[in-house]
């Protein structure tokens, strides 16, 4: 991706990254409007809407945008027609996430049908584009293996999600509770955890300058988890409760092992200077570990299994604690780097290009992260004691989303200004304008 002609235009990945934070803010807004009632059960319409604003609107959106951007680097394959591909994924996903949230809130089958069509289109385009690239990978590294498993899991997640949508939209008959459990597990353990793992194998050792992940782990973790997940699904679906419980325990241990391995590598980092995104990684992995241990213990303890709070903790820890934190941190590396890179390539020798730290100062990252952390802790507190903590949690959730968006938009504004000023200095050829 570093040879400029092969780099997708900045707008292709950036469109995912600047709209995604709005969905965190919307989830916060929804929680403010609904109040403590939203936490009555994970099955309330508002809870389902807020969950999907976070998972589809924020997580899937950034993960797919970043994946398209990273494939050329990590896998050595260029995604064709980047601008068109990005639009074909981004537009239906954005509208689909909004329509799905609206559908949960108003319960109208027409909305479910619309959301289903849009999400089918967006995820379908993404799956095709990324699959094509992954199967053409010239060398099958541990990361490629993990990404293939993650993509397979996304396919299952979307398939199950669409059939659940069919239940609401067209009245399909299916065992909704079991299918929802499978949908959640494939989305969080399969797609999200395996994708983060595949990316972490690369970015943790390289950007934090740590020892590599153990080579057996890199090759074996993702396929093993995918197989276990499939076995667990079959057992859960078939009603073999004890076998499913045991398989689930092994899955939870696997997730915990990934979190512990990553946390341990981070303590061995040789890059000693302060890096505000390090806190994002640590929070993310600590949340993943806590979530995995809770998931491990819950089926064996009547007290935990019966407590409605535990269901919430098992949602908040992996979604907002693990996924949102690590994505938040990655965005703070990706967006300033891409802006710097595109400025550098277009203005070389004509104007001084601001550094990444001038495009997005560490202080701005740190402040937003504190609000994120407050939101996480308040959400966990709200799960346990809704009357007191729901409103503060909702406000902090909205606040961290808005602030993330403002920080990322700030990079875009500086990019536009510097580019315009720089290009005004010297005559510009058509070719260069088109690349901007």
């Amino acid at each position, binding site marked *: 991706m570093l040879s400029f002609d092969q780099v997708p235009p900045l707008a292709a990945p950036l469109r995912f990254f600047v709209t995604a934070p709005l969905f965190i803010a919307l989830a916060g807004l929804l929680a403010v409007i609904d109040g403590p009632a939203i936490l009555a059960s994970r099955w309330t319409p508002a809870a389902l809407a807020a969950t999907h604003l976070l998972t589809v609107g924020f997580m899937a959106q950034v993960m797919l945008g970043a994946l398209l951007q990273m494939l050329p680097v990590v896998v050595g394959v260029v995604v064709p027609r980047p601008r068109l591909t990005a639009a074909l994924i981004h537009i239906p996903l954005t509208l689909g996430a909004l329509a799905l949230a609206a559908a949960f809130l108003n319960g109208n089958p027409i909305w479910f049908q619309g959301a289903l069509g849009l999400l089918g289109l967006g995820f379908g385009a993404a799956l095709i584009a990324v699959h094509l690239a992954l199967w053409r990978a010239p060398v099958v590294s541990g990361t490629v293996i993990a990404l293939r498993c993650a993509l397979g899991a996304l396919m299952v997640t979307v398939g199950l999600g669409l059939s659940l949508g069919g239940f609401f939209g067209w009245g399909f008959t299916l065992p909704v509770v079991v299918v929802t459990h499978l949908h959640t597990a494939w989305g969080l353990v399969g797609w999200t955890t395996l994708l983060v793992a595949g990316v972490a194998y*690369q970015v943790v050792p390289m950007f934090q300058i740590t020892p590599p992940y153990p080579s057996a782990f890199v090759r074996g973790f993702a396929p093993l988890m995918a197989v276990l997940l499939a076995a667990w699904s079959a057992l859960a679906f078939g009603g073999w409760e004890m076998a499913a419980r045991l398989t689930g325990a092994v899955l939870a241990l696997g997730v915990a092992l990934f979190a512990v391995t990553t946390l341990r590598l981070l303590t061995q980092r040789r890059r000693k*200077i302060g890096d505000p995104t390090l806190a994002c990684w640590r929070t993310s992995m600590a949340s993943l570990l806590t979530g995995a241990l809770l998931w491990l213990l819950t089926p064996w303890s009547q007290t935990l299994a019966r407590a409605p709070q535990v269901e919430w903790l098992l949602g908040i820890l992996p979604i907002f604690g693990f996924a949102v934190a690590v994505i938040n941190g990655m965005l703070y590396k990706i967006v300033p780097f891409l802006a710097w890179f595109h400025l550098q390539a277009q203005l070389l020798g004509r104007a001084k290009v601001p550094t990444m730290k001038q495009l997005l100062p560490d202080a701005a990252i740190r402040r937003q992260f504190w609000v994120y952390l407050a939101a996480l802790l308040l959400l966990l507190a709200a799960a346990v004691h809704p009357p007191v903590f729901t409103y503060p949690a909702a406000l902090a959730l909205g606040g961290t989303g808005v602030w993330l968006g403002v920080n990322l938009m700030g990079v875009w504004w500086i990019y536009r200004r510097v580019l315009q000023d720089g290009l005004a200095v010297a005559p510009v050829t058509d070719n260069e304008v088109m690349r901007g």
Partner: protein
Amino acid sequence: MPANPYWSLAMSIREFLIDDHRHCDDFFAAAEQAVERSDAAGAATAFGQFRAALLRHFAAEEQTLFPAFEARTGMRMGPTQMMRIEHEQMRGLVEVADEALTSGDLEEFLGQAESLLIMMQQHNMKEENVLYPMCDQQLAGEPAVLERLQSELA
């Protein structure tokens, strides 16, 4: 992934050059750390070591590894060409960072270092994940290439 994909006892090109990447990383981290401590002399030493190690690595690849790969595969405009372009970009960035360090603008240096690190590691990922394994495959019958790299980067 296994350190040596071919299960032989000899070191692979990939393994050897990855070690050299990590060696450069260590100097880079030391320079950054010295700057953060406002230790200008220490930073100049470490960054000088980093710069020398990096340029030597580029030179060994451009003069030994890439020509051998190109001769064997006939791919002259493929991955090796892209790596050469990226080496050129990084040489430029190293100079810019070096100027910031020499002029005593440590803030500017840390900003430049951040993007240099990302450029460098993306480049390393491509080499380590794609190009080096291809080199090991293509040059399996030419042990002299690795020996020459080892003597150049000794």
